[in-house]
């Protein structure tokens, strides 16, 4: 796997909220429409502020300046500043100092997008010349669905190759020419997504980026990937739900829901719930989809958990980045073990998906305990493996 030097201009850094305005915000009408129980939370304020922000003509926000100031670190730190800028560029706040911060971040995202697009065409050409045909997912593959790719920042290039092409791709990316690209290379496709790499290839399509054709998953597979990725990571980044909203709203008329939802009923329900969240929290249009009914019956814990996550939407606050040390360290020195163990308590959404549980109204703690047990088992198996190097 490859990771070359990331320019400091684009370096990922968690943004700490600092002194946030905890005053109860005046709720936007959109927020009331979403009928959320925890309406005073910053997460709910983010949801209302990002309402339909991905659209070419995003509705102007009526947010107060002090409310905006309170959520700016959360928006900036989670990659949603360009979308936020779209919500206020025609509003009463367009000339405010807080708006200036969002405009600057949007400019930075725009040059970021331009640089990455140049890199994507170069690295795909490089790989093709070596006989490797990669599929690009997430990142630019979803940014291209937005009215402008600068609205949706990303930090690496996710490429999927068949297992038979992986070593060739590794060689290319390890070469002096390939090293300069920030590529996350995947061997095959995660079986938990319920799609084989062969099926992904078979249904994939080529889209133009400058003068290069880029292979991306078909719309159905991509929406499925986005939904499951959102849930597997505990739904903590608002931008991921915007991705789902964009993918739903830009789907082609011939979009095949059977492919998107798949044959596994539980996974299909997770996907339906993700789309339902995009509708309930962000105002995504879902009329005419098979998930309309499910969107109205989402479990209460699901909505409240997403909004809770959005109060700290920074990668530095999320597992595994917030772990103090690898568990193996505590075998040698147990100091700090208990406090780090608390950080590892999984969130309800991630735990339910990890353990293959249903999205119903039952309590989530059995799934959270289940995930802890599975992870502990894996850790022990890895630690006690006889051929372990260290």
């Amino acid at each position, binding site marked *: *796997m*490859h*990771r070359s030097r*990331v*320019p*400091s*201009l*684009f*370096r*990922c*850094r968690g*943004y700490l909220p600092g002194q946030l305005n905890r005053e109860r915000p005046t709720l936007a009408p959109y927020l009331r429409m979403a009928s959320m129980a925890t309406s005073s939370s910053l997460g709910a304020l983010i949801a209302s502020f990002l309402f339909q922000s991905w659209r070419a003509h995003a509705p102007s926000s009526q947010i107060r300046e002090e409310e905006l100031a309170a959520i700016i*670190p959360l928006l*900036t*730190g*989670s*990659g949603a*500043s360009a979308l936020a800028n779209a919500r206020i*560029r025609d509003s009463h706040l367009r000339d405010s100092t807080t708006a200036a*911060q969002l405009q*600057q*971040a*949007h*400019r*930075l*995202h*725009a*040059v*970021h*997008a*331009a*640089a990455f697009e*140049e890199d994507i065409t170069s690295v795909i050409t490089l790989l093709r010349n070596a006989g490797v045909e990669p599929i690009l997912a997430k*990142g630019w593959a979803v940014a291209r669905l937005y009215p402008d790719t*600068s609205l949706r*920042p*990303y*930090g*690496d290039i*996710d490429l999927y190759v068949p297992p038979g092409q992986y070593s060739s791709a590794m060689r290319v990316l390890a070469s002096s020419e390939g090293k300069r690209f*920030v590529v*996350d290379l995947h061997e095959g496709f995660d079986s938990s997504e319920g799609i084989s790499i062969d099926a992904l290839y078979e249904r994939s399509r080529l889209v133009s980026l400058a003068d290069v054709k880029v292979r991306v998953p078909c719309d159905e597979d991509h929406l499925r990937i986005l939904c499951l990725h959102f849930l597997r990571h505990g739904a903590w*980044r608002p931008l991921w739900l915007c991705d789902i909203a964009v993918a739903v709203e830009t789907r082609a008329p011939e979009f095949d829901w059977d492919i998107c939802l798949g044959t596994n009923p539980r996974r299909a329900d997770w996907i339906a719930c993700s789309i339902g969240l995009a509708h309930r929290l962000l105002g995504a249009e879902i009329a005419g989809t098979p998930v309309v009914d499910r969107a109205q019956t989402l479990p209460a814990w699901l909505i409240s958990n997403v909004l809770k996550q959005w109060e700290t939407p*920074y*990668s530095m606050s999320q*597992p*595994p*980045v*917030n*772990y*103090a*040390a*690898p*568990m*193996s360290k505590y075998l040698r020195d147990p100091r700090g073990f208990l406090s780090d163990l608390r950080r590892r308590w999984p969130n309800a959404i991630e735990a339910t998906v990890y353990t293959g549980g249903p999205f119903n109204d039952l309590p989530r703690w059995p799934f959270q305990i289940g995930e802890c047990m599975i*992870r502990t088992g*894996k850790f022990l198996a*890895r630690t006690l493996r006889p051929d372990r*190097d*260290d």
Partner: protein
Amino acid sequence: MNNTTNGFKPRARKAGLVVRELSGELLVYDRERNQAHSLNETAALIWKHCDGHSTIAELRSTLEAETGASVDEQVVRYALRKFTRSSLLEEPLRASVGERRLSRRELIQTIGLAASIPLVVTIIAPDVFAAASCTQACPSGSPVECTVPGCPVCSGVGGTCRAS
């Protein structure tokens, strides 16, 4: 090459730059210096016409033709100095002996319209998020090599530091 203002034929730098238009601004990212600049409409127009063949006087004429307004040569010189400072030209502009450099304020007083002053602003923004995965290499195959918090597990010799 005579890089003083009289015979200077500026050429916009292309190599190592990524350019994108956004809401009437031209954004230029210098990949070699890791700097991003925002050029307003006037600056963008001048920079785009820096082809290495046009003198400052010719650039002024081009600008007049494109904007339909009278343009002072000082405006072009001011822009070229800004481009030089931001390393956006192949060859830097050097001032002639005795040449007086106008500040932005003096330029506004001379020209009269602040909107027509070419601006090149370096973009300084709070650290913005860019999503990335656990992708640090662990060449020795040992978790000891995995120094990124949250990516503690090595996938094997020559592999990557993973979350789990």
